[in-house]
């Protein structure tokens, strides 16, 4: 008997030996999501800022991006569509990616590998600039989970990002930018969609 069969038959044997559970089966109410008190864009912005991210709401994305890059004095910029190799990306100052969706209640970006082929641009450079369409912002986590799992399919790699990289492993003191970026700029595009 191989290990798989050994483990499965051990599971079956022990379950069969178990006396019935006397716990009553729980009944729980349908979860009702209260509509957000403010616009999804405002709620999203508030929550991105609550986790130490910057959020810019604009109709002119290229101007916003240019401004951030100029202000930072960044020289090497990796874009997720045409990225440098995995070895080279360690040398870059800024990474720019899109986000296929966002969650307003948590300030979260959703990067799907089907569209965002090079997600290392969102992780390795010290600054990450993410662009998301205002119309792609969901209110809840449940909606975002349903979005990435449509028609029973899911991309090989989906990443949720909420704020810049952080740790509190030393005396629970917050330190921003441990393995990932120190700065996260989220640009919410209120203009025509850039995703096509």
């Amino acid at each position, binding site marked *: 008997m*191989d*290990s*798989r069969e050994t*483990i*499965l038959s*051990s*599971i*079956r044997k*022990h*379950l069969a030996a*178990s*006396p*019935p*559970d006397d*716990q009553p*089966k*729980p009944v*729980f109410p349908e*979860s009702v999501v209260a509509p957000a008190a403010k616009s999804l864009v405002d709620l999203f912005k508030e929550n991105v800022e609550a*986790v130490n991210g910057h959020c810019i709401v604009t109709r002119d994305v290229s101007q916003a991006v240019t401004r951030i890059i100029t202000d930072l004095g960044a020289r090497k910029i990796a874009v997720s569509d045409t990225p440098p190799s*995995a070895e080279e990306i*360690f040398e870059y100052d800024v990474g720019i990616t899109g986000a296929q969706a966002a*969650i307003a*209640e*948590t300030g979260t970006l959703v990067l799907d*590998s089907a569209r965002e*082929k*090079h*997600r*290392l641009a969102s*992780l*390795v450079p010290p600054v990450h600039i993410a662009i998301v369409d205002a119309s792609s912002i969901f209110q809840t*986590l*449940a909606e975002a*989970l349903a979005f990435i*799992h449509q028609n029973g399919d*899911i*991309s*090989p*790699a*989906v*990443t*949720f990002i*909420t704020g*810049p*990289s*952080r*740790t*509190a*492993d*030393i*005396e*629970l*003191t917050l*330190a921003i*930018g*441990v*393995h*990932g*970026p120190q700065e996260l700029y989220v640009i919410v595009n209120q203009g025509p969609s850039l995703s096509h």
Partner: protein
Amino acid sequence: MNHLSSETFGENAKAALADTQLRGALRHATSLFGKRRLEAARSLSNWEDLRTEARAIKDEVLLHLDRYLETFTANAEKRGAVVHWARDAAEANEIICGLARQRNARTIVKSKSMTTEETHLNDALEAAGMQVVETDLGEYIIQLAHETPSHIIAPAIHKTKGQIAELFTATLGMAPTEDVAQLTSTARATLRDRFAAADAGISGVNFGVAETGTIVIVENEGNIRLTTSLPRIHIAVMGIEKVIPRFADLDVFLKLLPRSGTGQRLTTYQSFITGTKRNASDEGPEELHIVILDNGRSRMLAHPLTRQSLACIRCGACLNACPVYQQVGGHAYGSVYPGPIGAVITPQLIGIEKTAQLPYASSLCGACREVCPVKIDIPRLLLHLRAEVAAGPKGNAMERMVFKIWARVMMSPSLYKLGSRAGRMMQRVMPLSRAWTSGRDLRPIERQSFRDLWKTKYGQ
């Protein structure tokens, strides 16, 4: 103070109580974690419903665990993952060492995984001649210090920044500083080189979704993303209990886990990994191997009570809430999993003989049960394990006899009356057993019983 044994919990605890630096670090960390958890739980109006729902989902999985594991495996393999099954720690380590050896891996980056702590994977890989680097900051600190984690989600919780600064100065040649940002960036710079050189990445798994074959891993630092996307091969290790039925169930667990663990609404990163990449030119590893580990878990299915232990999602909330853990910390337990859940899991994983003291490392106050996001009845489980200890060779025959008599007396009104009268007389001449009373307040029996008092006041 490292590598203590569970068999000497009492002595370990005494030593920990004398360590003022440790107790300061613990007080700070556990109270802060506790406060943040409470605030985060209160931010959701349906927290209690979520706990109930999470437990119901876990119960459903555990009752049909064979089926869900098979579905998970079939779906993960359909998407290009290779699934391995390991009966115990030795087999898991053998599989992983074999995979690394076949690919001539020399440098291996690892993200935090309690399951691989349980199997002592690092020792096995090092014995096979490979260099293993822990990349979670807390894990990296304790790896440099040659210690073991003292908390499920904050492995270096027992160390002060002064101690960490000394460690970095001695091992990494850092200029002395106690600035946390500086310490963090020193670790970042050192670890970046290791990531760039890594031949293989090893991670744990928070949830395995049967419906899609997806593994979900949560983190704050970004080291899991690097570990699972830079090297050519990714090996993920998961206990059999990590599987959940449906993708949509993640909504419940991703609300409960970060709030219970760190008090966050969501951790910075969630990685949802489903099989391997679709095109060779895409980012990400070429191979994904998932090692499913039993190592004593399937035994726990044999009783509804012990089965609960497998519902645990490793958030660490019960550690922070426990008055025993708050005072003695994780190392005193002498086990990979410390705190209340550790005292429940460890005896079941490695046998009650070597861990007979752990079920007693609790005041049974119930704080752990209050905070548990999946409502595990830890105090009841501890009592269940204590009964097992008491009935076994480590049980005290005298204690057994005393409680047998006690039970008889308590069930009979006349014996009870007689007993309390005898006790009242005896307590003047004979002190109670020292072992029992030295750590407990036991009030002397009142001079007059309630019945007698009633009789004198109100007649018959």
